[in-house]
């Protein structure tokens, strides 16, 4: 669903930017609307938890103290474990790639390749659409063929597609390359999560994944 949102946004942004010349900040109204829908959705989903006010006073202070001590211990265990850092390093660069690409590709096409804004805005949608399809379609094959090999393969493919995007000055080939880049980029987030849940011992999993 995250990828679906990434797909829809560039359409709205391009429409706002090209129709209402000079007042592109109206796009933020769209974001405000989404935020409001989000608040309503959270309130509806968690309405049961919101009603619990009275806590049972039989718990006692001793239990609460031991819970916070074990939480600190879990955090320290998480911070001491090397796989957490290695996987985080991978995710660090992965999101760097994804967000840099999707954020800067339109600006690049407009300034460095002399694209026109109404046409070029949809390339970002193509990238996000590729990510959406990649997440949906490629999750199963990745799991079947082995996650390590497949992710390494996707990294190589993404490198090749990025080089095509960079070095071939044709607009259509760039657009196609970017869409396929998004497609192979899609499953990597979920794959990393599933590898992470297999690598970390159970008691530090929530802390590690959140960290």
């Amino acid at each position, binding site marked *: 669903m995250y990828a679906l949102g990434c797909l829809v946004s560039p359409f709205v942004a391009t429409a706002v930017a090209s129709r209402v010349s000079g007042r592109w900040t109206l796009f933020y109204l769209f974001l405000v609307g989404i935020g409001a829908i989000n608040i309503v959705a959270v309130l509806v989903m968690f309405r049961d938890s919101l009603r619990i006010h009275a806590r049972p006073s039989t718990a006692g202070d001793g239990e609460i103290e031991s819970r916070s001590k074990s939480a600190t211990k879990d955090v320290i265990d998480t911070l001491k474990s090397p*796989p957490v850092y*290695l996987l985080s390093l991978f995710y660090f660069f992965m999101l760097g790639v*994804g967000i*840099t690409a999707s954020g800067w590709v339109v600006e690049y096409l407009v300034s460095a390749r002399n694209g026109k804004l109404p046409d070029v805005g949809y390339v970002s949608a193509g990238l996000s659409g590729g990510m959406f399809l990649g997440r949906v379609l490629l999750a199963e094959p990745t799991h079947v063929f082995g996650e390590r090999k497949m992710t390494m393969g996707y990294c190589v493919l993404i490198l090749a597609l990025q080089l095509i995007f960079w070095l071939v000055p044709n607009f259509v080939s760039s657009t196609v390359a970017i869409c396929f880049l998004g497609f192979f980029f899609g499953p990597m987030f979920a794959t990393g999560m599933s590898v992470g849940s297999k690598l970390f011992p159970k008691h530090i999993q929530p802390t590690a*994944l959140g*960290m």
Partner: protein
Amino acid sequence: MFVLAQAGGSLFPALTGIIASKAGVKVMQPILVGLIVAMGIAWALVPKVEKRNE
């Protein structure tokens, strides 16, 4: 991992922007290539998952 990943997701576009304001937007491409290579190397470093008997 989310915290560190989001840090990367915010750091690199900002870095690209700073470099691009000095050297022009076309510098985004080599930066992206470098990031993808770093990503591949980082993935190669992730330890193997032993098969758990589930």
